[in-house]
């Protein structure tokens, strides 16, 4: 699997993502600056975490208009797999690649801690390595991760099986106590209608190594590597 990580001014989790991709695929991803650089032909495009353009407007709003995003959207439309994490998720929503929006956390504070995610669907290319219903532990690190969409959209997402991860207790039960940001219906990750673009707030890339305290995030990258093996 060949992959590329898009770096906007202010992106800061490209290293974490590159480490995870290297661990899962044995290959270093291409790191591509948001302007003036051509996006190479790859199997996976990653929009990583950070504070693109400082997030001084709505989070991800300016990144959505970065020069490279037109190409990312075009490739996604053609079926190239896109993983959009945290700030990348915010940018993908702002760019119209995914429905909904990420609002400030209900607690109005930045939250960095491990959370539990219930895998809602085991589906390639993203979650084929996990069984549906499995609970994984990965960290969140964000100030604006409160997923919101109107009722019709949420119903449609659920009806079409596009909710991939939900915040949960370690045993998989749902409840506000396990939801770090107030997201609607505890949604932590969703895919687009075609199923080739995943947006999620948590950082699976930060728990892929036993020495860092866990490997629950690694399955996502191994699953991608398996599904997208060239």
């Amino acid at each position, binding site marked *: 699997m060949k992959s590329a990580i898009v770096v906007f*001014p*202010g992106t*800061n*989790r490209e*290293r*974490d993502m590159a*480490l*995870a991709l290297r661990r899962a695929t044995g290959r270093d991803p291409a790191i591509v*600056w948001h302007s*003036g650089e051509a996006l190479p032909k790859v199997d996976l495009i990653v929009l990583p*975490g*950070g*504070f693109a*353009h*400082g*997030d*001084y407007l709505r989070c991800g709003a300016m990144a959505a208009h970065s020069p490279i995003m037109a190409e990312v959207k075009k490739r996604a439309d053609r079926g190239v797999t896109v993983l959009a994490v945290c700030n990348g998720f915010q940018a993908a929503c702002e760019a119209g690649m995914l429905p909904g929006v990420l609002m400030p956390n209900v607690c109005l*504070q*930045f*939250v*960095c*801690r491990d959370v539990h995610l219930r895998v809602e669907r085991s589906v390639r290319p993203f979650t084929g390595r996990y069984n549906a219903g499995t609970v994984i532990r990965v*960290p969140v*690190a964000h*100030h604006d991760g409160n997923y919101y969409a109107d009722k019709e959209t949420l119903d449609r997402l659920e009806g079409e099986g596009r909710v991939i991860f939900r915040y949960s207790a370690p045993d998989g039960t749902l409840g506000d106590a396990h939801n770090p940001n107030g997201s609607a219906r505890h949604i932590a990750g969703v895919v687009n209608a075609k199923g080739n673009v995943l947006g999620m707030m948590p*950082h699976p*890339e*930060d728990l892929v190594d036993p*020495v*860092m*305290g866990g490997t629950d995030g690694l399955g996502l990258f191994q699953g991608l590597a398996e599904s997208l093996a060239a």
Partner: protein
Amino acid sequence: MTASAKSKTPTHGRNEPTITPEIVREHGLKPEEYDRVVQFMGREPTMVELGIVSVMWSEHCSYKSSRRWLKTLPTSGKVVIQGPGENAGVIDIGGGLAAVFKMESHNHPSFIEPYQGAATGVGGIMRDVFTMGARPVANLNALRFGDPKHPKTRHLVGGVVAGIGGYGNCMGVPTVAGECNFHAAYSGNILVNAMTVGIASKDRIFYSAAAGVGNQVVYVGAKTGRDGIHGATMASAEFSDDSEAKRPTVQVGDPFTEKLLLEACLELMATDAIVAIQDMGAAGLTCSSVEMADKGGLGVELDLDKVPVRETHMTPYEIMLSESQERMLMVLKPGREDMARKVFQKYELDFAVVGHLTTTGRLILKQGGKVVGDMPVKPLVEQAPLYDRPFVETKAPAVIDTKTLQVPSDILGSLKRLLGSPDLCSKRWIWEQYDHLVRGDTVIRPGGDAAVVRLGDGPKGLAVTSDCTPRYCQAHPKTGGAQAVAEAWRNLTSVGADPLAVTDNLNFGNPEKPAIMGQIVGCIQGMGEACRALDFPVVSGNVSLYNETNGEAILPTPVIGAVGLVPDIARCVTIAPKRAGETLILIGVTQGWIGASVYLREILGREEGAPPPVDLAAEKRNGDFVRTAIRAGRVSACHDLSDGGLLVAAAEMALAANLGLNLDPAQAGLPEFAWWFGEDQARYLVSTSDPGALIKEAAKSGISAKGLGTFTAASALTLQGAQSISLDELRRAHEGWLPAYMSAPVAKG
């Protein structure tokens, strides 16, 4: 008077007044200091010149009260590449790498405007580190707030924590460790000390000494505005009730610009373009240009019309003294301008050639084609006043006789109160607002003794911590200074690291008072003694004096930030034991020292008594033993003993692992409370599945090791098989205080 000393009086800036004694006083210069200025200038200075001298000679930049004593600290050693005097200290960590680190205070601005004050403190210390060519890999912060009941405290805690997070999180540098205390002595002067650790190639360290007459001086980063003018002078004065009127002097931070500046600088540093580089921190363009020229023994000429400015009609005074953030000054090699400009254009940052180096040894400022400032560089640095201020040694307090104390008999009740007290409660509410995981290298997260971040692809890691026990320093400065160093050394040891070197942040009151000066001298003496004994040199530091409001000083607070090396991150331990059945073992001797303890203050309401003595030979011996045991895999967890003593540390270990703990009775011959809550130094708790071997090993080395009890699968902490308290109850007390404090409804007054 020498010919070179005197210059023609330059053109006065627009609307700039002539100097009066009143203006001199407002600039924090004593009349005799001003006389010295006139003498080396050979004439009266203009406003901009006066401003420049006043910041260069401020306590913050010149260390005029502390320098004499700072010189007594050990600053060399086999790992030291660069000691104090540069932007940050540099040590050799092997494998061609260097660790670059420093701690710096932003106390005064944080009290006036907590969010921006703390944020720009973090921004400033990160610039100090990356200006030397290092990528920041870990941030720490040491915070001291006032009485929790003081009406401003909660607002300050909330603002400072959000500000630190707001800046560090955006920069993508994990904030992995720190400390936070509360005491009424800080109600009018909080302390915000921020530390950054960076990694660089050992042979690619960048320094600030200018070289190459004619070479261009280049300004990069953000534009200059009117913010932060005279911040360094403000940081060198006491507060009074009208300090809040100083709000406009607090700078405003832009972490996004700093992130771009970081990436642009590191990108340019990978080429050969840079001769010298210096960040614009305290005293902005003044300090950076003067220090670069002075270190290179050169002069510098600046054209202020070329400085990128945010506002029109800025005077030379404003441009030279602005503390606008996210700016750097560089000297480039000839012919590298275009290449360097392209790098900064890529990141959409300002890049302006603002001057060049000269042979004159003078700082010459031009605006509108006229000379507006002309002064010799050397005296600005070298003739800064140096004071040998009179001091009174703090009298050693009486040792408290534990047998005379009337104490509650309920040990577990006291434990619960201590675990839920402001100083000992969990600081999770704080560190969960900091991104402590970004970069994907955090091996040991906040909440334990030291944090560990992986170096490159591993297996090595860096351990980092910050420590100080101000109540010990207040009781006996020399002991307190030594203890702060010893505790930092212990914390690094507790995760299995070799302690390498320290940075210090010395926070005190007004040094012109002999009693305060006595605290400064005593603490530095104690620190020096401990650093020498533990082979733990000081490579950088910062001094913050005049932390007083209406004459009331803070507790003496010499914070020690320390860095250690972990040879193999897979062998690190945390404070959490691994499984039920492991034995808890105490390393070190317990006398039940209760003077100046948290127990004495929180349970008995008394702040008095001699602090626990620091036996540096015992520290070394016990620490070396523990580190060896960790590396050999003989212990599964380790926690150093400090605030609150044995029972607090044991409970923290049980909570961290969510394991129960059955503890044996107190050591015979000691009052129970003194055994459980005494704060004797040089002690560790370790957990092991083979206690016999460890105790035997310790005996061979002449080290006291004693089994204390067993971790269990039950969810309670039990004393002597009788009294018991559930982990849930302890956890609620420990985790509950800070969130409850921060979310309590605002009192109506």
